[in-house]
């Protein structure tokens, strides 16, 4: 394909969009909705997986002792924990230190809550050597009589995992429906484009234009629709994501993934999806239409 032809195709593609601007805008809008919903679901899953991984990768747990255990008894418990296999670190965290940590959060309530009866138990931050032995190590620590509970990651992980699966299941249905709607709208937009240019197409055929040449501007039209929808979707999704991310980051630090870090991946994914839908949507209409000849093209 020569540069002349490429220029011609791109020019004609833009021209088609402008001539059928309302339908083109409708196609873009539907695709944008579809991509934002899809992208939102994917980003949610991505964040959940990221959070799961970060939970899984934390090789330290918090061991809480019964409220009745005194600091001197806690020291003995600490030695027992240190003797458990796979434990490489055991840092004592007194009830006073715990209360102090929450002093800022509790504010004026601190005095009322902590002055007379400190509600925080004695605890230990325990570091493990081998994460694959997580379950057995936790069970051994739990078997120490003074140990009340262990800050366990498995429950949180399970909740996150279930949530991710539910979103994914619901998302697939929505995305499939919207995907079909997008294809339908794009193919109709291209169909209208072809119809409005049927006269030119009949002339093109009569002077010996190949089907590829006739097809190209309409494929480019579909690609442009997909491309614009992809770019707009990226920025809209990015803006919404950034707002949500700032809120979530304020509550649970370092859990989510910054949009800056995944911008190009999101953009790439959207562009590929948009172009794919654009090409498929266009091809559906073009195929039917190119089989017509001569007067049938004009009479269509």
């Amino acid at each position: 394909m020569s540069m002349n032809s490429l220029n011609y195709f791109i020019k004609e593609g833009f021209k088609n969009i402008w001539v059928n601007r309302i339908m083109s805008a409708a196609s873009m809008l539907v695709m944008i909705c579809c991509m934002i919903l899809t992208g939102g679901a994917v980003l949610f899953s991505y964040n959940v997986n990221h959070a799961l991984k970060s939970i899984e990768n934390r090789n330290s747990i918090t061991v809480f002792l019964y409220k009745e255990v005194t600091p001197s008894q806690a020291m003995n418990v600490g030695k027992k924990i240190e003797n458990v296999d796979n434990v490489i670190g055991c840092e004592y965290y007194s009830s006073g230190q715990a209360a102090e940590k929450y002093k800022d959060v509790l504010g004026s309530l601190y005095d009322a809550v902590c002055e007379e009866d400190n509600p925080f138990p004695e605890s230990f931050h325990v570091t493990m050597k081998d994460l694959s032995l997580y379950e057995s190590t936790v069970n051994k620590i739990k078997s120490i009589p003074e140990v009340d509970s262990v800050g366990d990651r498995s429950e949180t992980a399970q909740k996150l995992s279930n949530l991710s699966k539910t979103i994914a299941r619901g998302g697939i249905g929505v995305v499939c429906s919207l995907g079909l709607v997008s294809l339908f709208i794009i193919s109709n937009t291209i169909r209208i484009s072809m119809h409005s240019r049927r006269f030119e197409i009949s002339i093109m055929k009569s002077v010996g234009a190949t089907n590829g040449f006739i097809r190209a501007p309409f494929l480019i039209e579909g690609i442009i629709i997909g491309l614009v929808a992809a770019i707009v979707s990226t920025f809209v999704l990015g803006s919404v994501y950034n707002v949500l991310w700032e809120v979530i980051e304020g509550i649970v630090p370092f859990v989510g993934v910054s949009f800056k870090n995944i911008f190009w991946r999101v953009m790439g994914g959207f562009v590929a999806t948009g172009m794919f839908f654009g090409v498929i949507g266009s091809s559906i209409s073009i195929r039917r239409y190119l089989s017509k000849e001569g007067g049938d093209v004009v009479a269509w």
Partner: protein
Amino acid sequence: MIEFKDVTKEYAQDIKALDHLNLNISDGEFVFVVGPSGSGKSTFLKLLTKEEEPTSGEILINDVSLGKMKKRKIPYLRRTMGIVFQDFRVIEKMTVFENVAFAMHVIGARARDIRKRVPYVLNLVGLSGKARRKVSELSGGEKQRVGLARALVNNPSMIIADEPTGNIDPSLSYELVDLLSQINKCGTTIIMVTHDISIVKKFSGFRIVEISNGKLTKDSELSGEKQ
């Protein structure tokens, strides 16, 4: 060389547009194809441009059988033909230049070649002064000249004109056929379908083929008779 060998085209059972047609047209000939409406003239052209397939028989152009031609080769066959339509088929929103250049664009011609060739062809058909005019501002005769220029611009070896004078005044019709005859003198084969007998009579010396009910009913070459 165009050869129709026992060509039949049936659109439905017992409706034969062409019925065992045998016809040879040599390179450089000017042939009027005449006959009443519904006689099969348009089908004859559609078979020639491979818009339609014959039900039986064989069509050869320069010894190449159209029946054996692959679909993807059809555009290249059409590039050897220039087609002029009764309804002009010019794009009203484009200028005269753009209409003619359009035919070169679609076969992938270079912009430099288009800039050189289009004015030359417009000059041939007498439209050199109207290159920048919108087609919508032209008369019927001028629009048909644009159609002819478009048919000529890719330098085809034959011109197929389907009732080219059907929508224009008689005086302009004569001018147009005169133009076609001049093009024919340069060696281009002209096949002109018409039902306007006055034109056929005016331009004597050309071959006349008459099709009626799908059959070849008269061929001035075979009968030795020329108008």
